[in-house]
């Protein structure tokens, strides 16, 4: 328990609610902390403009509209996320697939840009970009002088600095929450969807960075394996939640 105050705000972004908490910057006005929170929200909004498939002019919108053999010039955010997505795809035998089945191997990122290798392949970074957005917002808060806080993008969250963040897990079947863990200096993400076998799975992953936590929940849900070897490779830990928390 500390006497430092916290600026806590939430806005609708990334198709969900994004919450940012920042402990007040020592030796500065509370307004300086609020300004750092505003800047972190702006960083997320800027990333959304570049990565959302719903924005025609975004890197992903232009890829999806392009013909086969096109090479799309992409920004730094897209490069980070796409490089991670390619690594996860290759290491998971395509279980992690940002094309949602439209052609997991029909895109390639290299120094020239993002190559579209077939007509009809479409990218959707919904399974990984929120995690990256959280990481970017944390970096923005830190560069703004905030030394402890958290960012939560609809359940994909990260805590940093000297702060123990209590994490509540939502009961997806009947609402309400249950205390799951306390997190310090790390990321935690949860996902729930139908696996390839039709069964509904509900999984969480803790990792250093939120990009990996977010993406690896998809691997755990897709494979039904909370001890998938990929988790260890990224220093992550996974859980499959049982009924009634994840019951349909």
């Amino acid at each position, binding site marked *: 328990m500390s006497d430092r105050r916290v600026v*806590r*705000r939430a806005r609708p972004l990334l198709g969900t609610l994004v919450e940012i908490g920042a402990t007040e910057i020592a030796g500065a006005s509370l307004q300086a902390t609020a300004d750092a929170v505003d800047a972190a929200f702006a960083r997320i909004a800027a990333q959304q403009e570049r990565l959302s498939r719903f924005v025609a002019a975004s890197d992903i919108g232009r890829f999806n509209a392009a013909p086969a053999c096109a090479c799309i010039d992409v920004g730094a955010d897209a490069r980070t996320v796409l490089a991670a997505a390619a690594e996860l795809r290759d290491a998971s035998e395509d279980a992690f697939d940002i094309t949602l089945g439209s052609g997991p191997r029909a895109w390639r990122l290299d120094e020239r840009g993002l190559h579209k290798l077939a007509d009809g392949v479409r990218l959707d970074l919904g399974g990984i970009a929120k995690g990256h957005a959280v990481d970017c917002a944390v970096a923005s808060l830190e560069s703004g002088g905030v030394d402890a806080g958290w960012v939560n993008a609809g359940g994909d969250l990260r805590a940093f600095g000297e702060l123990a963040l209590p994490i509540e897990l*939502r009961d997806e079947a009947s*609402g309400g*929450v249950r*205390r799951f863990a306390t*997190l*310090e200096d790390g990321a935690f993400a949860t*996902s729930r969807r139908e696996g390839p076998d039709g069964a509904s799975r509900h999984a969480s992953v803790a990792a250093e960075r939120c990009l990996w936590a977010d993406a690896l929940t998809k691997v755990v849900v897709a494979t039904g394996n909370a001890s998938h070897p990929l988790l260890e490779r990224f220093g992550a830990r996974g859980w499959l939640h049982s009924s009634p928390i994840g019951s349909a």
Partner: protein
Amino acid sequence: MRLVLAGTTVAALAAAPASAFAVDYLSLEEAQRLMFPDADHFDSREIALDATQLQALDAQGIRGRSARWTVRIARHGDATLGVVVADAVIGKFELISYAVGIDGDGAIRQIEILSYRESHGGEIRLPAWRRQFVGKTQAAPLRVGDDIANISGATLSCTHVTEGVRRIVAVVALARRNGSLP
């Protein structure tokens, strides 16, 4: 990274009773000052939509839902800077109240969530459960370690908030056209 589990096992977690969850972010007064820091006062105005106006919204694909709206007009002296409208939407388990700041040219200036409430069980459909939160967004200054808990779960869609914002923008545009708002 340091993660300390609350329960001993995932099964124990599932057996624990679910609790409700609530966060207050800002009061409406705080939100309107954030959105229009240059305003020296805010005038409150009631807008009542008639059946024809509700039909006009319907024709735009926007469900009017409510015929009565309270709009806060941000002013600096005699000049109108914009308006702020607060609303609340209900999802599957959550009640979200939010405020939208709209500039004089009709563009959205800012959207701030005022409060978030998550129920357990079916309480969210009960008017009594919802009423207990009316006017409760006091936004006391938080201290580290007080109540900073965060929810993780399958991604919450904010479709209801997005629809609500569209509705407010349309209502404000309509009120400006018919002269009931500056």
